[in-house]
């Protein structure tokens, strides 16, 4: 009996492992919890329904069973099969919502990386100004928050091993976060159809040890091929982009150049922003950048005063379409910058504002 159980356990765990990606983060493990719960719950219902159908089909086939029962229903039974599934469904919903909360709330100490999607590649921009195409390098055991936007059409950023996915939408920022527990290479896909080479819009998430990552960030080349392959598919290499695409690290610009915030600082002076916005808290025509990020601001929107948090999306809107929400006490005089700054420049300016605590 014990052997049978063990055997069964072995088979199920092998089957489980073969049909799901490696859970490379705590969130992924929570996700697996509810997923397998749903699988087994569904199996109970499915086996029950199909077994009943087969048993009825055999037992009551017209050849042997000639006394069809003249009944129209059974109210208690009908109530039971309405109420019990309802309860179970709300259990699923509640549990699912708990896991979702884990998925969406990035820890406040997350490392931020900016992600720009465009037909058909992923570009990653780090705080220190390093930028890479097709390969996202992150340290292990450190929460990472991606701030993503698109230059053209909808894309979606999907890392199966972390069970996270989010649409990347032109004109706004969306986020995903994860904390990698498993070093090595993880596959990244675009999962929102985006035209011709949608299926070529792949990337690799490369999880390094803290020290390796710092080396890479400071410009050292990493031998990616020596890293463990995607643990979901041992024996296969994770893929980055379609064939013929350049080596990501060749396209990487790192070391020696300006950090993202410094680039932003340069931009606000070349674009003329500094004429109206100070960096030291003094009040010019417009509000100062200092301490702005994350602050609650009273703004006038359509004649009404409301309170907003100055987050990435608010800053983006205030640069591209400044008159939408004007900070109380300031004149609505800034011209719209939409089309005058590209995604990378926007990211740099916002990073600069962010750096002025």
């Amino acid at each position: 009996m014990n052997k049978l159980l063990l055997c069964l356990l072995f088979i199920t765990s092998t089957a489980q492992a073969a049909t799901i990606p490696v859970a490379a983060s705590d969130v992924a493990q929570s996700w697996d919890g509810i997923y397998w719960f749903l699988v087994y719950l569904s199996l109970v219902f499915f086996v029950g329904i199909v077994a009943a159908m087969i048993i009825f089909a055999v037992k009551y086939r017209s050849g042997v069973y000639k006394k069809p029962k003249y009944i129209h229903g059974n109210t208690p039974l009908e109530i039971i099969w309405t109420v019990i599934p309802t309860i179970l469904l709300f259990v699923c919903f509640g549990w699912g919502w708990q896991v979702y909360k884990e998925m969406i709330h990035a820890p406040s100490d997350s490392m931020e990386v900016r992600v720009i999607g465009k037909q058909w590649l992923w570009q990653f921009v780090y705080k220190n100004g390093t930028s890479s195409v097709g390969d996202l390098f992150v340290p292990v055991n450190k929460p990472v928050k991606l701030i993503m936007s698109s230059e053209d059409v909808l894309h979606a950023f999907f890392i199966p091993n972390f069970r996270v996915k989010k649409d990347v939408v032109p004109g706004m920022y969306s986020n995903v976060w994860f904390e990698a527990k498993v070093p090595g290479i993880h596959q990244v896909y675009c999962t929102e159809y985006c035209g011709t080479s949608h299926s070529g819009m792949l990337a690799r998430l490369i999880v390094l040890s803290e020290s390796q990552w710092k080396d890479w960030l400071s410009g050292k080349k990493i031998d990616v091929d020596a890293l463990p392959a995607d643990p979901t598919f041992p024996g296969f290499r994770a893929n980055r982009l379609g064939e013929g695409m350049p080596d990501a690290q060749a396209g990487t610009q790192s070391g020696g150049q300006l950090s993202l915030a410094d680039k932003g600082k340069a931009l606000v002076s070349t674009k003329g922003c500094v004429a109206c916005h100070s960096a030291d808290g003094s009040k010019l025509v417009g509000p100062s950048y200092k301490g702005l990020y994350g602050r609650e601001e009273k703004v006038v929107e359509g004649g009404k005063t409301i309170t907003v948090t100055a987050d990435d999306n608010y800053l983006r809107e205030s640069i591209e379409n400044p008159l939408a929400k004007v900070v109380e006490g300031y004149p609505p005089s800034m011209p719209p910058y939409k089309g005058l700054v590209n995604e990378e420049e926007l990211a740099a300016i916002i990073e600069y504002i962010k750096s002025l605590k």
Partner: protein
Amino acid sequence: MAQATGSVPHHERHHAHHFKTGMEEFEACKQGMWIFLVTEVLFFAGMFMAYAVLRVFYPQMMKDVHQLLNWKMGALNTVILISSSLSMALAVSAAQRGEREKIVRNLWITLLFAGGFLVVKYFEYSHKIHEAILPGKLYAYQELSVAKAPLFFSVYFVMTGIHGLHVIIGMGVIYWLIRRASRNEFGPNYFTPVEMTGLYWHFVDLVWIYLFPLLYLVS
């Protein structure tokens, strides 16, 4: 099958073969018409939704920009359409009593009002086109540079344009009714087309009564 293929005076008219009585046929048509109007409501609801989204996201823009519309013209058109609803209602009640002259006269009046509505609309549109106050990326009006203003005119032109299309279709149907009425096809036991067109016309009127304040009188 004595359906409306030729000219059949109302007193000789028979209901379609699959209905038991003329009353049943009338009731079916009326229900069908109401359901059709429900689909119309939902069709316009999509546009009102788009309008609502703009209104919620960019209230100031809506306020600033709507002043480019001439509310006097809008108000004039509202009066015109309400009057046309009245004459339409008179036509329906005349049809129920079989007063041929009166049906025809009131339908002509309705048609005239509808034409008047379109004339006013023509002046509004041509002025806007002349000034390049146009939807979306066609917008090139220099006097007023409010961000997203083109979106307001997208909604304005789509909504009033589709409403105008409904007016034009209604005019076609009313003209068809006039032809049939002059052949004395409507009377106490057959006035379905007039009544149905009446319902449609009141609906078109009602849509305008919502459009006018929402577009011309944003506050």
